[in-house]
């Protein structure tokens, strides 16, 4: 089994293809892979509690996908709380994930 790091920098509402990225994360997890979904830049917008896509992120978290949101991106956008299942992260953790926390990086 492999470890996938999916970094989402786009606003998930703005692009139709974002649904495929979330589906990919869930499907990889269902197939037994280790998956981390890392939200950065406008990707953190979906993690705001009450956002429509926040529920989708929470579902992914419950299914075993690690969902993280970068702290600088969140702070810049005034997001002080994150949806259930989404954990606050930072650039150090992203670097650690790239170095020895994954086998493949997909940057969306």
């Amino acid at each position, binding site marked *: 089994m492999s470890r996938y790091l999916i*970094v989402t*920098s786009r606003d998930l509402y703005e692009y139709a293809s974002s649904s495929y990225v979330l589906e990919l994360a869930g499907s990889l997890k269902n197939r037994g892979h280790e998956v981390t979904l890392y939200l950065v830049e406008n990707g953190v917008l979906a993690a705001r509690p009450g956002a429509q896509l926040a529920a989708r992120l929470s579902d992914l978290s419950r299914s075993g996908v690690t969902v993280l949101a970068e702290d600088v991106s969140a702070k810049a956008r005034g997001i002080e709380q994150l949806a259930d299942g989404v954990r606050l992260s930072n650039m150090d953790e992203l670097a650690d994930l790239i170095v020895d926390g994954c086998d493949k990086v997909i940057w969306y």
Partner: protein
Amino acid sequence: MAAQNGAKNVVIVLATGSYEREAPTTVLRLAEKLLQRGVNVNVWAFEEAVTLTNKDQIDHSEPGALQGVLGEKHSHVSKYIDMLLRAGLHGAKLDWVSCILCVQERGVEKHQMNSVTIGTLGDLWKFVRAADRVITIPSYR
């Protein structure tokens, strides 16, 4: 330092230039963290990203509002790149290659910073072949 079995060489392929999106700053912040971990970073810049290393550009940060969050750590783009290139002299190395066709098309071939290499797709291929991780930053509209 990089974990014993962890990545030692990371390639970042970047097409986003100044005044477009937050991607260049994210890449620089990430590159800095990777270099601190002893990981060699190769950046292959093409399309608008070749303007990031224009030594004659007016100092600017991307986006300027991030200074309110990062404070003094949010260097101007060219200074940030220069700092990372210099850090490579004494630790993990950053190589920054700008695509030759892209610099020519944009008239910045003779304006590239001193430590930047003007290269070709052959350089990208060699970077990818030697890399443990390849990160392609999408250019989207």
